[in-house]
């Protein structure tokens, strides 16, 4: 890493919030994963594209929905056509971190492709609990996933706690628009 070439700040696009060169936590030394993910060709295309607009979907809706102990919720995300998912965040109502948890997975309604090979625990994917929140509250995907029309994401959440709790999975993405409509 010490041999990495110096980059002239005048060559950095500071208007791009997802540019790993402008964000300390995503630098090559601090997070090689984020640094590489944000330079994935599809990520780069989204970062530089015109005619797209950011979208965030919270599952389930409303975001303060109480899920009973042991219950499984399948939430069909009402995403707009051609939704690019590029990051996720998962959380519950716990402030005191007494380790209430839940499992979740995100599946493509058409192709059946799942983000995780099996449901993953919220604690595993929550930067607040992993001590890396300074790098961002969400988890960047290694490459964006396109939910091409008529596909949409289906979020499965399983409350593995012995108590009812508010659980949320937040999807960060963007949708394609005709540039003239923006």
């Amino acid at each position, binding site marked *: 890493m010490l041999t990495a070439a110096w980059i002239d700040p005048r060559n950095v696009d500071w208007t*791009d919030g997802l540019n790993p060169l402008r964000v300390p936590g995503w630098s090559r030394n601090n997070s090689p994963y984020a640094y590489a993910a944000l330079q994935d060709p599809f990520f780069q295309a989204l970062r530089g594209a015109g005619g797209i*607009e950011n979208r965030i*979907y919270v599952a389930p809706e409303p975001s*303060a929905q109480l899920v009973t102990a042991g219950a499984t919720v399948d939430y069909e995300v009402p995403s707009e056509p051609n939704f690019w998912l590029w990051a996720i965040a998962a959380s519950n109502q716990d402030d005191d971190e007494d380790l209430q948890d839940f499992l979740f997975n995100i599946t493509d309604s058409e192709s059946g492709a799942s983000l995780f090979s099996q449901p993953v625990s919220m604690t595993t994917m929550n930067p607040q609990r992993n001590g890396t*929140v300074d790098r*961002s*509250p969400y988890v960047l995907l290694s490459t964006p996933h396109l939910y091409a029309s008529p596909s949409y994401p289906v979020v499965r959440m399983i409350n593995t706690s012995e108590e009812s709790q508010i659980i949320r999975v*937040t999807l960060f993405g963007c949708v394609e628009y005709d540039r003239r409509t923006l």
Partner: protein
Amino acid sequence: MPDANQPDYVEEPQLYPYTVSLSSGQHLENQSVNIDRDADFTLTGVNGSSTGRYTLNFRTPSGRLISTAEILDTDIIGTANQPTAVGPPMVYRAGSVGPQLNITDVSGGTNAVSIVFSGIRRVKTT
């Protein structure tokens, strides 16, 4: 070779803070974060602090809410040295109401909330 008809711009850092004190369970809608009339604003990150949990939603430059439901602060609000990038750059026009907020306290008590929208202002020089 630059096009002689293209306007010239200067880019400068810009931060638009929004501060509010919410009572228990209070919900506020369409809170303007007014953009200065002299320059467009490119939003590159969001950070903030609060004395309790809250949820929020805000509008994109086209006027749509960015999220289908209000987002928990810990899922989107970044830190001072690393504001959260909410996606590819969004440009709010000069003089607009900016990233208008809907915000709700979920802490169950009084909640002093401060949110900073950081980014770049693009000042036209010619």
